């Protein structure tokens, strides 16, 4: 299932930022991208930092005529200005004027940089040279392959250690495709099959198994796929221009609305991304970015871009780059192998009506009762409500409430008005304890939760009271926690976590995620049982925390990270001894409830992997805080009732690190935390091994102490608090 994730701005609105010459190329390393803009300047960006690393511009009067590319082997940058002038520089160079310069004999259309494949220069006339060839003899003659055709798109690939260059040309509404292998001096020319009343707008291609798959976005809102075999034998006659047949891959019609695509990117063999404007009848066209599954012909996800785009879309390293409004925006995406289940994307989902049907055993049990209701209901529409009330009353009169079996009560009051429900159920539960009372209470909770689903009704206090007074379990009322999650009833979830012995790991994880993601401000007004935290948390140190953060700004803590063991410099010690709790007391209490709940590692781990990175870091930060707090005490226990034990803390810490190892390693904000944690653990290990050594001597001392204690008289000081 593909999904669009968070987005951020890579570059704010520049002066006249929507220049036509704007183009993106991958930079010399991961997380780097090279932006060529307005024909005059090239900028290197670090994506994750959202900042430029370098910028080079031309003298006034010179114009960059093709996107600046980077040589992946030498990390040099190559630009062409004024069609013919080649410039090569390194990132240390500041001025382009002093950079290497070569003037070519023909106009350059574009330079393609291939990893492990060198650079290919495509000339306007269709000729292709590698850069190395050109630099040996810049003024060499370049042949003209195409006559009167204009290149519309070009792409370069590596196949079989050979660079392959594909470009499409247009002439009098005819489109041609050229496939060139410059190392083998082979050139093939194909003609594209014509399409009535539509012409290609955008191309993209990829090569798999000696076959070029050319995807072509046509103006009739469809994507066509063209397969071009890369033949090994070059003996074929070139007079006959082969005509390439195309097949319809996808049509962008979303329930009457039509997507007018402007740009197309292939993500993998099943997914393509299309940038375009969605034209619904009687509505303003909306620009949006969409991801489609070509295998199942479904729209996977879309994102509206209300500020408009330039129509260009690039995609590198699982990130989309586009001009949204006047800013260059990066949108991250995830694209997983498609399966049938995952393919039921957004489009299908909105079409299927939300029907859920399941057995209600209580109804079956009292089938007669239901039948009687139904017959009465069918008497007449107008009298229906009155009849209902009356029939209920009459039954009430016949059978006193207390003589009804619990099952009957549940069935009868399942549809009763809200105010009646609670009082009746309270009476039901107040009955003398019978062996199945537990099950009855479970039934009551189920009726209540059924009602709560998809409605505003939510008897928070009543549910809380039930959970607190009865020894329920998850299996008795499986929907309760789901409803609690839906209604964000943190206190109920906390109580359930503390009391239920059999919560599935999935729900535990859902609670953890909810607890981590809920805002502190919202929690401050929530009633949460703080017993487990008040004994060790320092509420007053909130302000202090802010201060230490100010202090640490500008202080490069990383410098001291590799200092190990006991000799920690004072500044960094004060910094690492960050005593304040990373979460508020309410959140801490909720997290403690999660720490206390039972789980099986194998079942929890897959869920835990889904925890968003920021929340994982926050949780780890809290666990680290607890760990430090615990270790402050000799007996490594936290005071208070239901406060987490050191074993629980360690187990969860290990689990979390297991689940998010790669994320933690990548995440810059986790770096400090991890290294602090590592340092602390190392210090602890060293400390405990030292303790091991002195245990023997301590034991001897203890024995001596015992002898000393056998003195018959002493005056001691005893403090009683």
């Amino acid at each position, binding site marked *: 299932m593909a999904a669009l994730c968070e987005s951020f701005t890579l570059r704010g609105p520049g002066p006249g930022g929507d220049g036509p010459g704007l183009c993106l190329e991958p930079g010399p390393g991961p997380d780097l991208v090279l932006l060529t803009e307005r024909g005059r300047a090239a900028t290197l960006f670090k994506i994750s930092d959202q900042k430029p690393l370098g910028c080079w511009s031309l003298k006034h009067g010179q114009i960059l005529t093709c996107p600046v590319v980077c040589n992946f082997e030498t990390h040099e940058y190559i630009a062409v200005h004024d069609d013919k002038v080649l410039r090569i520089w390194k990132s240390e160079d500041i001025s382009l004027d002093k950079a290497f310069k070569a003037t070519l004999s023909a106009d350059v259309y574009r330079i393609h940089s291939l990893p492990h494949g060198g650079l290919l220069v495509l000339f306007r006339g269709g000729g292709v040279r590698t850069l190395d060839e050109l630099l040996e003899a810049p003024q060499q003659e370049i042949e003209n392959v195409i006559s009167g055709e204009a290149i519309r798109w070009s792409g370069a690939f590596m196949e079989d250690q050979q660079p392959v260059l594909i470009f499409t040309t247009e002439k009098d509404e005819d489109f041609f495709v050229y496939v060139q292998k410059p190392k083998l001096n082979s050139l093939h020319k194909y003609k594209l099959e014509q399409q009535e009343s539509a012409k290609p707008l955008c191309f993209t291609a990829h090569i798999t198994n000696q076959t070029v798959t050319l995807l072509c976005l046509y103006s009739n809102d469809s994507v066509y796929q063209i397969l071009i075999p890369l033949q090994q034998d070059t003996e074929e006659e070139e007079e006959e221009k082969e005509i390439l047949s195309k097949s319809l891959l996808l049509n962008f019609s979303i329930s009457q609305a039509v997507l007018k695509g402007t740009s197309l990117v292939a993500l993998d063999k099943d997914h393509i991304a299309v940038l375009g404007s969605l034209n619904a009848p009687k509505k303003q066209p909306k620009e949006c970015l969409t991801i489609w599954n070509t295998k199942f012909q479904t729209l996977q996800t879309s994102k509206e871009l209300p500020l408009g785009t330039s129509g260009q879309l690039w995609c590198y390293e699982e990130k989309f780059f586009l001009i949204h409004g006047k800013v260059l925006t990066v949108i991250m995406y995830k694209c997983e192998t498609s399966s049938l289940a995952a393919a039921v994307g957004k489009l299908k989902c909105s079409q299927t009506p939300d029907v859920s049907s399941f057995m209600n055993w209580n109804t079956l049990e009292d089938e007669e009762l239901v039948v009687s209701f139904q017959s009465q209901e069918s008497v007449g529409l107008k009298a229906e409500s009155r009849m209902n009330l009356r029939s209920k009353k009459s039954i009430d009169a016949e059978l006193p409430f207390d003589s009804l079996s619990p099952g009957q009560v549940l069935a009868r009051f399942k549809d009763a008005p809200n105010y009646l429900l609670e009082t009746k159920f309270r009476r039901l539960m107040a009955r003398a304890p019978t062996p199945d009372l537990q099950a009855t209470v479970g039934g009551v909770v189920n009726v209540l939760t059924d009602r709560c689903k998809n409605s505003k009704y939510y008897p928070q206090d009543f549910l809380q009271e039930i959970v607190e007074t009865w020894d329920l379990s998850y299996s008795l009322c499986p929907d309760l926690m789901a409803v609690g999650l839906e209604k964000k009833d943190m206190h109920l979830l906390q109580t359930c976590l503390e009391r239920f012995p059999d919560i599935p790991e999935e729900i535990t994880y859902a609670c953890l995620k909810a607890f981590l993601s809920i805002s502190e401000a919202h929690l401050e007004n929530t009633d949460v049982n703080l017993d487990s935290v008040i004994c060790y948390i320092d509420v*007053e140190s909130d302000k202090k925390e802010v201060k230490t953060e100010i202090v640490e700004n500008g202080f490069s803590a990383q410098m001291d990270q590799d200092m190990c063991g006991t000799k920690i410099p004072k500044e960094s010690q004060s910094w690492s001894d960050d005593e304040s709790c990373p979460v508020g007391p309410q959140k801490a209490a909720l997290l403690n409830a999660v720490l206390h709940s039972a789980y099986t590692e194998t079942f929890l781990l897959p869920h835990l992997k889904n925890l968003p990175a920021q929340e994982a870091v926050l949780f780890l930060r809290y666990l680290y805080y607890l760990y430090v707090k615990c270790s402050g005490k000799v007996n490594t226990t936290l*005071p208070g009732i239901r406060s987490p034990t050191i074993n629980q803390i360690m187990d969860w810490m290990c689990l979390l690190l297991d689940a998010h190892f790669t994320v933690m390693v990548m995440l810059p904000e986790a770096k400090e935390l991890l290294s602090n944690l590592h340092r602390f653990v190392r210090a602890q290990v060293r400390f405990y091994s030292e303790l091991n050594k002195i245990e023997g001597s301590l034991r001897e001392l203890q024995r001596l102490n015992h002898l000393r204690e056998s003195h018959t*008289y002493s*005056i*001691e*000081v005893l*403090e*009683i*608090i």
Partner: protein
Amino acid sequence: MGEFEVHRVRFFGLVPAGVRCLACHPRGSRLALARTDGAVEVYNFAANYFQEKVIPGHELRTVESLCWAAGDRLFGAGLSGDITEYDLSGLSAARGVDGGGGPIWSMVANSTGTQLAIGCEDGSVKIFQVVPGGIQFERNLDRRKGRVLCLSWHPSDTHIVAGSIDFFRVIDVTSGQTVQRIMVNHHVEKAKRECVVWAISLLSSGTVVSADSFGRVQFWDWEQGTLAESHTVSTSAALSLAVSEKEDSIIVGTSTGATYQLQLLPVTLGGQEKRWVRTKPFQFHSHDVRAVAHSPTALISGGLDAQLVIRPLMEKIQKKSYDAALRKFTFPHRRLVSCARKARLLLFQFSQYLELWRLGSTEETGKDGEVLPLCQMPEHLVQLKSKGPEHIYCSCVSPCGTWVGYSTASRFHLYRVHCDGDGVSLRKVPKVPKLLPPAYQLQFSADSDSLFVASARGSVHVFQLLEPGGCKHLHTLRPPSGCSEAVYLLAPSADGHWLAAVSGDWVSAVVPSVHCPLLQHHCTVPTYNCAVSALAIHPSTNNLVIAYSDQQLLEFSIPEKQYTSWSRAVQSRGLHRAWLERDSPITHITFNPKNPSHILLHDTYLLCVLDKSLPLPDDSTLLMNQSTLKQLPETARKRQLHAFKICKKFQPLLFMDLLDENCLVVVERPIMDFKTQLPLPVQQKKFGT
């Protein structure tokens, strides 16, 4: 709350006497216990095994055997050759009847409790009839050579089995003839050592169970004279055995301190054939287990290490209660220490002498847990030996430290203590008024002007103390309605207006004291179904604080003659579960005059400052939270505070008192200290030693 300077005293050299024999009341509600020094104690199962009666010993009266007969009458017999009946309401031994066969080794009552059989040194078995007011010799059974060490009646009272050295015999009661004589060593190859049959029991099926010095428990068919089963439970002697009432379980005590349970179990599940199987071994004692008893729900054992151990049989217990936990008692449930607060003296009571000590002092102060340097060492002032064979019932030192009194079974003694400089002189007060002895409790008034003597039949004598060393009987306070039981606890109020007294039928009566013109009984605290273990009158509010043996605490307002609102609140809320499940009863209550809301109390394992101004803990909070509190910052402590401030640092605690507002004295008796004074136990090879 505050810091205390604690005088931690470990020089009270009490060595509790070993347990010699046990006797379970036939209805299972009480347990009689005799110690090697001749003291007899009665424990009440219903009142959390409270040691409700103690009859101090006598040098010439050792008790080898105890038995209940004719309902609630308790008889003892010993090597003096006398059979003694104990007056449980008067807490004294009645005059003994000579058995006429030399030292008595064993005594058993028949199933109806009408006859007693004694086994004597000379090999005779004699039957005594229990008659109102005493016992009467009935007849001699067949006499054979060899002391009779143990006896057992057949449940139908037709036969008696008597164990001797190397053999036991079965005697027909009606004819008085020996019908079977069985050599216990006959089956073994000619043993060089003699084999002592230490304990024996005759079951209703006709099986004889014997425990002998070879560590064997053997089952005999007495009619055939054959050995049915033999279990060697120990390499050393099996000293005692007891059979459950249903005759399906046996407990055996051995000289290694181990006890074993044997059970009659079906050979196959649900099958008819049953055999005796050794099921559970226990090692609770370090020394000989000379006495065992089998109550319906528990195995009870007493050893020479002075421990009484009650080990519940979990399969017999329906619900979790106080009875469901293992109980061990080593120290008496009453205090043997009294303290002169002003003079800082401690008086220790031993069985036949008293010791008076002066506490040391320090000039330093310190933080929690520190041991302060002493500037003056404690001083053993005097040892006061009681004359005669009788053991001391009670003793007391006056708050000013100038009077010391003690009482034995027959006499009451009062001494004047003069401390001048280094010398201490002790002068006996002449012409002490003759009273009907004994005194069960002595208590001086706070101003040391008068002395209260608890006496039999619920009466309390008031003596006026005269300078320089005299004593005058002022009054005798008696309860309005007759009371048969002796007063065993006294509590005078600080202002001298009130006196609370507790007698054995568990009524604490309050009578106005000397200075009050109407020397009348004021009121009686509502009867409670457990024994009072300690009580005290608050110095400023005159509220009576009572601790019961089931760990309940009540506060009774004397002026208003009703329970205080705090007490009602405690009752309605209930005390903390951990408090109620404690082992030993509260043995002393005192108050902090500077802080009227504080009540100080202690039992053997903890001392507690009860702050009435704080909220009571509920079951979900931690009762012993002092160590947690110490870890917390000041601000966080407030929320965690509750009324019970418990310190378990000093164990086993025999006495605690407040000397002044922040100075405590605690008297400990570490178990190891007195174990070293016991005779060496049977040597056992232990791995790694």
